[in-house]
């Protein structure tokens, strides 16, 4: 248990008779990125609020950084940093004052606080805006300041609740880069997102949350293999070889998007065993494809299949 950043068992939360979390289990090893993925209203923010000591769960046990969430909330608070969905900056204070406020609350000395603030302003590209009140910042700048404030206390575990919601693509990419740097320095990240691409880009493990239940968990690759729809593309040098291959395998169709009509798509889950079997059969028939590529379904397919939702409502 010691090297787990988060260990939650049977987490429950209801508001009146509306069940928001219906018994979820989470295991996040230290130094990894865990993404909780789900549509609006799935219970992502509630999960973060419980894990970050903001609200109490109705049931279940949680250990955060080795501390019991219910009995040692202050020790948990000392170990974590939270960047919420809505920017948690004081809009009437300047960027630098916001950082110094955090430094004071972490009881850094005046000198250390100043140094830390300067360092973070530099790192988050906020030096020019340091003296302006946060109310004048753009969405991306507020989000960067928000994360910078979280980092003042050097937390070992950081919760990022929808860190890129509402950001333009450029700000999103720069936020991703920041997250990757944090991970490289050994920090554990618990991330919620409604963007599949984001989970795919950043997370070691992904859990799909829908209506307060975890409906799937694993690496992005594992999740993609959960559903059918993948295929292997085989490219051949001439039409005859393609026909031989089709005859040998007994299934597949010519990829209509290839103008030369020399690519065969064979339905497959993309796993190693299936690939080996396919190649063995081609080999036995003396057929050598010129090129081979595996197409697993992307997370969008997984998500939509598992949650049974229309694509547009997730965006």
């Amino acid at each position, binding site marked *: 248990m010691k090297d787990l950043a988060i260990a939650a068992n049977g987490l429950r939360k209801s508001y009146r008779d509306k069940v928001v979390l219906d018994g979820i289990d989470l295991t996040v090893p230290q130094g990894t990125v865990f993404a909780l993925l789900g549509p609006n209203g799935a219970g992502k923010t509630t999960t973060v609020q419980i894990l970050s000591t903001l609200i109490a769960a109705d049931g279940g046990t949680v250990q955060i950084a080795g501390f019991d969430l219910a009995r040692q909330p202050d020790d948990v608070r000392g170990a*974590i940093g939270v960047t919420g969905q809505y920017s*948690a900056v004081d809009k*009437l204070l300047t960027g630098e004052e916001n950082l110094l406020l955090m430094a004071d*609350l972490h009881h850094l000395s005046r000198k250390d606080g100043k140094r830390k603030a300067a360092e973070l302003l530099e790192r988050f590209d906020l030096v020019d805006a340091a003296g302006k009140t946060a109310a004048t910042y753009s969405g991306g700048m507020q989000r960067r300041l928000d994360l910078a404030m979280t980092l003042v206390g050097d937390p070992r575990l950081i919760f990022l609740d929808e860190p890129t919601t509402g950001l333009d693509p450029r700000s999103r990419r720069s936020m991703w880069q920041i997250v990757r740097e944090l991970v490289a320095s050994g920090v554990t990240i618990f991330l919620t997102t409604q963007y599949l691409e984001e989970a795919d880009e950043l997370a070691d493990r992904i859990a799909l949350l829908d209506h307060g239940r975890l409906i799937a968990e694993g690496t992005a690759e594992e999740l993609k293999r959960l559903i059918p729809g993948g295929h292997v593309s085989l490219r051949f040098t001439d039409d005859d070889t393609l026909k031989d291959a089709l005859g040998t395998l007994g299934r597949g169709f010519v990829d209509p998007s290839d103008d030369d009509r020399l690519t065969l798509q064979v339905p497959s889950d993309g796993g190693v065993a299936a690939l080996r079997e396919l190649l063995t059969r081609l080999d036995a028939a003396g057929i050598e494809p010129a090129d081979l590529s595996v197409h697993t379904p992307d997370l969008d397919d997984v998500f939509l299949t598992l949650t049974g939702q229309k694509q547009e409502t997730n965006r």
Partner: protein
Amino acid sequence: MSTLALAARDSSTMIRRQLKRLIRYPSMTIQLVATPVILLLVFVYVFGGTLGAGLGGGRGAYVDYVVPGILLMAVATAATGTAVMVASDMTEGIIARLRTMRIWRPSILTGHVVGAVIQQLLGMAVLIGVALVMGFDPKATAVEWLATAGLLTLFVVAITWLAVALGLKAQTPESASNAPMPLILLPFLGSGFVPTDSMPTALRWFAEYQPFTPIMETVRGLLLGTPIGNSAAIATAWCAGIAVVSYLWAKNTFNKA
């Protein structure tokens, strides 16, 4: 760090935050200082001639009589501003962040209280200054002035904690602005603007036993030499009681939310 040292350090940090915010957003302070001054002008120059005659003096006598009432009214009015400020602060993400940090939690509220107290003492100083220009003629010694300042500060602290609790209890800044309303009426339903013995029996009974009356009577006695009797003790007890109950109420509400 011991709890006490932690409390002191975090409170001073949050007080600095609040003072910076007040300086950056001065319209609230200006309004808090200006409103009682306008009330004083209205009461003295519009109603003061007639009301002063009823007291057996004139406009000049009424300035002396009404200043303690306006002072308390200023505090009650400011409570509305404090409640709104707390309620709107609670809706900001920054408070959620502070709740997830290992800090002395009441410091978040202490910042608001100390900021508001400073703001209101400033307002009272301006008000007394204007009253002096208008002919307010206190007879108080330095010790009596100090006692007045002490009692009024205690009163401001009590009402401000009450305003913080009401602000926390309110779901929105809009409803927070209504909650302290009854406080504004209390100087009227007491000895703030006219002596209580001119009121009908039921109202007079309420006026004599509500907390604002002994406070106004004590301030009046200290500044103008009217008899104080047991008002000072009752006033202090009311202020201390309101302060303690409101502090606990605010702390509880904040921890539960």
